[in-house]
Structure formats: structure tokens, C-alpha cells
């Protein structure tokens, strides 16, 4: 336990306590029992500008009148009268003693901590020692640290806001582009399957091009969003066993269409169904191969060739190669090939592209754990490849086309309400429903109109856009559920809000189904059939 009594210097000491005090880098003042100053060291004299001769014999508030009634004076009195020591902090008392300190050549008010120490018993023999510590340096450092912390907090907040703005922007872009694409792709599909006036084979080919390009544009939107998601670390994959044959056929056919325009022969060595099963995300693998193929066509020479081939490189690994007869790539060009916005020297050329395809392919392959690469020879051509793990051909998910087809004919003698403010989409839905014998489409262009019609007409199902003027689809759904007349009617969302969190919200809101645009007509009809309870 510390002693509360200070040691008294010996009389025969070479240095007196006062002399030593003058050489200390703290302020020292000794107060007698009557509250008068007995000792005032040089540090205090220099800091306050009050000489020791002036200070000694006076009370502190006489020497410094501004301190009358100050807590420091109270603490000194308390130390002398009651023997109580005290501590006073610069943080709670910005002004203690009027001291200045020199920093960077300038005179500044000094930040101080003061300890008032009671010496001896209270009463006539009492004394109080006041110690003043200059903590200006510490204060300055703390202030600077807090300033930097605030700067960092502010920068972090700005970055978070920018990230939110980017997400909002991407959501809006996705929504605005998907809405017209819904009409383009949907009408192309209707036109192709028109029964009364079937298109000619040439027209079918052109319609297919419309559909294919619409889907490509849709894929591009997806790519941009995906690159953003990959960069943001929020991309999720669905790795499953897939039969390569139909996937490669699909890629091959798309490339044939593309190659015909550029006089490129697409000549692939396609495997028969069931020949190879690999583990991959089907959609992403198709995306990587399509990207390889479209590059092979775009950067080929006139009348060149492109081919897809497969080769087992080990018992566990299959390599799919997309080869071309283009100009080939130098070693330097190959180094930067998979970085974003590399255009293979076509930055100012006539070949279309954004330069993100290979970057996405690289990132997707990294996510799937399937290496990709390129072998190339200048003036001969390039071979882009991806290595995939081979698996046993089991548990391959069946396709759902049949279900949709059989269900499509089952919605009869039913009225379906569609709430949609976009005329093209409304017209598309009219044509889709018109193909269902006995089914009637009731149209509403706003949420409030939809509610009125639903209440009066009691349709068997309601198809609802989300982004409606005034009342949005979620509010319409809530009100439909609150009205006993409409509470039991199945409500399907059909919306261009296709971001993952939109879909999650839609599913949680209680829609019978949450379907995104562009509309997949067979899937839509299948779901509609389930909604009205005629699914067979």
C-alpha cells in the first residue's frame, strides 16, 4: 500500500529539494496549511510567467485570479483540510493552469494533468503538493489518431454508399433491359410456333436469329451482372453431373449460325449422348464454351474453320478444345489474354465485343475449379481449352419440357387476370393466353385497377408485374390476401426484377410463383396450370 507521507530531504544534502525541483520537467508547487504557496518551481514560473518570488506567500487564486472558485483550488483546500488527494484531467478540464507550451516553433495552450497530493495529517502541519504534467504531445497524438479514424470511417461509409449505388444501378439496368427483351424473345417464339399462318422455313431461320440474338443480349446483361457478382464474391454455382453431348450440340449449333455470317466453317467432333459425363455448372460451362467459340469465329480469317473436340487427358479428366484457324497469338498477347478488357489488338478494330468474355470465363473456371488455357501458334491458329472432371453418368436431372407441354393444354374455361403496365408485354400475354382454348385474359394496367377487377371477376389466377405505377406488386398481393373474396386466388409474379435478392424477397412474400422476364413460355404455362389446379 503506498505511503501518503512524502520524504523530507536531509539538511546536509548537496541539493535541496527546491533546487532539484527546478530541474524537473513537471510543475511542482507546495502549499502550506494556510493555503499559501511555499514553493513554486522554475518550470511553473516559466510556463505561467509568474516568478517564484511573486507566487510564494500567496494563495493560488490570488496569483492567478481566474482560478477563483476553480475545482483545482477546492482540491488543494480539501487536501489541506481533509487530507484528500485528487487527480484532475485535461480531458475534463480544458483550462486548468494558464500554461503554454512550445510546439513546432509556436506557443500553444498546454494540456495538463494535475495531481494534488495531501502531505501529512490534516490541520496545522498539513501540506499539499501540486504536480502538473504537460500532456500536450499525447493529446496531439490522440487528436491526430481520432482525426484519421474519422477519415477512415468516412471513407468506408462513402465506399459502402458507392457499392449500394452500384448495386442499385445494376438492378435498374437489369430491369430496364429485360422488360423490352421479354417482348422481343416472347413474340419471336410465338411467331415461330404460329399455327394459323405458319412461317416459311426462311422466316423460321430469321425468327430464330431474332430469338438467338435476343437471348444473347439477355446473356450479355447476365454477363455484366455476373462479372459484378464474381468481383463482389457473391456468385454461387450449381455443380452437378451433366451429359456433355446435348450441351456441345447446342454450342455447336449456335456457332454454326454465327459462323455462317462470317463465312467460317464450324466443324465439330461431337460425342454421342451419354459418352461423357462431367461435373460442372451447366450454364457456366456453356457460357465458357460459347465465349471460346464466338472468339474463334470473330478473330478468324475469311473462310477459316472452327471446331469443338473432346479428349480424355487422364482417367479423371476430359479436355474440351475449341480450335480456330485465326492469326494466332504471340506469347506476349497470351499473357494478358484472360485479363478484363483485352481485345486481342482489336481495341480500335471492327470486331464487336467488350473484352470481358475471357475474363469472365477465367473467373468462372476458377470458381468451378476447372482449369482453362490457350495454346497458340502465330499465323496457324489457337486452341482454347477447359479441363473438366469426369464422373459416372448417374443422377442427371431430367428436363421439364414435357410437363410444360402437357400442362399448356389444360388451362381451359378459365379467366386469368394480368396486371401489367407495359403494352408490349400485355400484348405478348394476350397472344400466349389466346393459344389456350377456353382461357380468357382479363387486363389491368395498374395495381388499383387489378384489385377492383380481381374482386369483381374472381379470376382463377392472377399474373402480376411487380414494378407497377403507384401501388407495387407486393402491396397488390397484400391487399388481395386481405380481401376474403380474393384471398385464395393464386398470384404469380412475372417481373423483370431478376436480381437474387429480388427473387428471394418475392418468394418470401407469398407469391404462388416468382417468374422473371424474359418469359419462358413453356415454363410459364406449366406453372399457370399448377396454379389453377389442372396440372396433369
Amino acid at each position, binding site marked *: 500500500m503506498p505511503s501518503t507521507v512524502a520524504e523530507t530531504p536531509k539538511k546536509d544534502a548537496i541539493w535541496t529539494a527546491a533546487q532539484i525541483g527546478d530541474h524537473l520537467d513537471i510543475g511542482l508547487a507546495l502549499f502550506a496549511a494556510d493555503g499559501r504557496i511555499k514553493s513554486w518551481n522554475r518550470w511553473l514560473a516559466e510556463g505561467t510567467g509568474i516568478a517564484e518570488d511573486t507566487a510564494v506567500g500567496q494563495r493560488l487564486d490570488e496569483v492567478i485570479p481566474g482560478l477563483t472558485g476553480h475545482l483545482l483550488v477546492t482540491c488543494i483546500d480539501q487536501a489541506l483540510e*481533509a487530507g484528500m488527494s485528487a487527480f484532475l484531467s485535461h480531458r475534463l478540464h480544458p483550462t486548468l493552469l494558464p500554461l503554454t507550451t512550445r510546439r513546432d516553433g509556436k506557443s500553444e495552450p498546454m494540456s495538463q494533468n494535475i495531481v494534488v497530493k*495531501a502531505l501529512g495529517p490534516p490541520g496545522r502541519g498539513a501540506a499539499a503538493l501540486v504536480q502538473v504534467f504537460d500532456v500536450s504531445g499525447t493529446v496531439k497524438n490522440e487528436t491526430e489518431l481520432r482525426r484519421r479514424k474519422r477519415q477512415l470511417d468516412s471513407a468506408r461509409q462513402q465506399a459502402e454508399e458507392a457499392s449500394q449505388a452500384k448495386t442499385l444501378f445494376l438492378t435498374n439496368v437489369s430491369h430496364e433491359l429485360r422488360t423490352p427483351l421479354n417482348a422481343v424473345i416472347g413474340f419471336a417464339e410465338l411467331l415461330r410456333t404460329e399455327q394459323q399462318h405458319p412461317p416459311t422455313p426462311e422466316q423460321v431461320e430469321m425468327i430464330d436469329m431474332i430469338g438467338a440474338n435476343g437471348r444473347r443480349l439477355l446473356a450479355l446483361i447476365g454477363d455484366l451482372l455476373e462479372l459484378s457478382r464474381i468481383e463482389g464474391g457473391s456468385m454461387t454455382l450449381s455443380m452437378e453431373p451433366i451429359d456433355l453431348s446435348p450441351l456441345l450440340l447446342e454450342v455447336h449449333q449456335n456457332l454454326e449460325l454465327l459462323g455462317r455470317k462470317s463465312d467460317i466453317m464450324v466443324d465439330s467432333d461431337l460425342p454421342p449422348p451419354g459418352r461423357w459425363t462431367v461435373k460442372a455448372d451447366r450454364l457456366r460451362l456453356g457460357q465458357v464454351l460459347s465465349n471460346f467459340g464466338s472468339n474463334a469465329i470473330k478473330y478468324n480469317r475469311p473462310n477459316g474453320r472452327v471446331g469443338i473436340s473432346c479428349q480424355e487427358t487422364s482417367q479423371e479428366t476430359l479436355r474440351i478444345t475449341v480450335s480456330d484457324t485465326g492469326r494466332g497469338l504471340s506469347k506476349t498477347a497470351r499473357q494478358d489474354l484472360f485479363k478484363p478488357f483485352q481485345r486481342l489488338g482489336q481495341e480500335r478494330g471492327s470486331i464487336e465485343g467488350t473484352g470481358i468474355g475471357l475474363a469472365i470465363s477465367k473467373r468462372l473456371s476458377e470458381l468451378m475449379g476447372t482449369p482453362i488455357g490457350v495454346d497458340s501458334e502465330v499465323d496457324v491458329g489457337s486452341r482454347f481449352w477447359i479441363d473438366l472432371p469426369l464422373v459416372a453418368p448417374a443422377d442427371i436431372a431430367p428436363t421439364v419440357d414435357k410437363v410444360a407441354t402437357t400442362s399448356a393444354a389444360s388451362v381451359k374455361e378459365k379467366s386469368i387476370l394480368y396486371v401489367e403496365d407495359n403494352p408490349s408485354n400485355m400484348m405478348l400475354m394476350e397472344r400466349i393466353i389466346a393459344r389456350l382454348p377456353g382461357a380468357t385474359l382479363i387486363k389491368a394496367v395498374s395495381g388499383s385497377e387489378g384489385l377492383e377487377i380481381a374482386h369483381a371477376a374472381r379470376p382463377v389466377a392472377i399474373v402480376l408485374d411487380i414494378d407497377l405505377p403507384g401501388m407495387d406488386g407486393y402491396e397488390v398481393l397484400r391487399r388481395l390476401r386481405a380481401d376474403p373474396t380474393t384471398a385464395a386466388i393464386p398470384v404469380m409474379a412475372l417481373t423483370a426484377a431478376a436480381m437474387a435478392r429480388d427473387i428471394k424477397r418475392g418468394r418470401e412474400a407469398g407469391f404462388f410463383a416468382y417468374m422473371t422476364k424474359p418469359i419462358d413460355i413453356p415454363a410459364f404455362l406449366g406453372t399457370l396450370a399448377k396454379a389453377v389446379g389442372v396440372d396433369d
Partner: protein
Amino acid sequence: MAEISLSENERDGVGELMNVGVGKAAAALGQLVKAEVELSVPRVYLVPLDEVERHTPVSGVLPIAGSYSNFSGPFQGALGFVVPARTRPLFLKLALGTEFDADDAEVLEGDLLLEIGNIICNACLAGVSNAFKIDLATAPPVYFAVPPREALTAMIGSHADSHVLLVELDFSLRQGEIRVFLWLAMDEPAIASFRDHLGRYLAELGL
């Protein structure tokens, strides 16, 4: 360890002494935090050092914060002002009002507890020394933010015979109220001396 307990009269006597002390402290505190401060009538328990944590709603692991002052005179020991872990943020908010943001409050905590603890401890000890007509001197306060056992060891050492006079009081500041504690920690001889003085004080009061 000998079991020591306070009689009802002794407990009332200590409560009154502390009440006088904290009453004075309230005024000094009000001056410091520029707001009206009220302190409740203290509740008093004398418990062995080992049982302090059981009698105080503080976790044995989470750090408590506060300050203590060693005192000396006819009996010696340490008086601590203790703020439990859960109460610390609220205590700072109430004491500092809205003048300081969270970063500042964190930096200020040590100094604030030093000063407030010092004011309360000094006032209480001054009340005791006046009532007992003795001289008690205090050393400058020491800040702590450690688990309870470490705080007690710093205050009184780890003597098996040490006891703690627990004084529980509610501390009202601005719009809120929090519970804080005073720990008057003394060893067995100091407790005996303290009780002698307390007995004389009560006798003078006719109790």
C-alpha cells in the same frame, strides 16, 4: 478466516456516514458534469474478500472499471468506486451527455472514472473522518479496468483475512439511473479498528 458481520445498528451507522459523504459528492459531481446529480441512500454489506463477486452483480470475467484511493490513518485500506461492465457505456453516456461522441467517450472513460471516483471516495472518507473525529489521508486515485478479483488485489492485496464493506448506491444523472458500488476494503485489524470507532460514534448518538 474469522466470520465478521455487522450488527443492524452498525449497518445503519455506516449507511448514514456514507450518505453524508455521497451527499457532498453529489454536489461536487454536479459541478463537474454540469447537471443535477442524485445519489440514493446506500445499502451496506460487510463480506469476505472472496465473496465480493457473489454479492456484487458483476461478472467474474468481464472487466469492471473505476478508481480507488488508498487511505491511511488509525485504520488503513482502500476505497474503490466501481462501475460494472454492463453499466459502463450507460455511465459514460449519462456522465458526458451529448457533448462527446463515442470515440471521445472511450478516451475519456479513464479520466472520468478517476475524477468521479476520487470525488465520491474523498467525500465518503471525509465523512468518516469527521464522524469518527480522526484524520484519514488519501493517496492520489488509481484507475482500473480489469476483472473484479484483479481490482481487489490491486486495492488490498490478497490477504485471506481481508473484508470488503460493500456500499451499493444508485447514481442518477440527467435522464438516467445506474447502479454503482463503493468497495471499502480493509484487512482484519483495520476492520476491528473501524468497528471500534464506529461503536464510539454510535454510542455518542445514543445507539
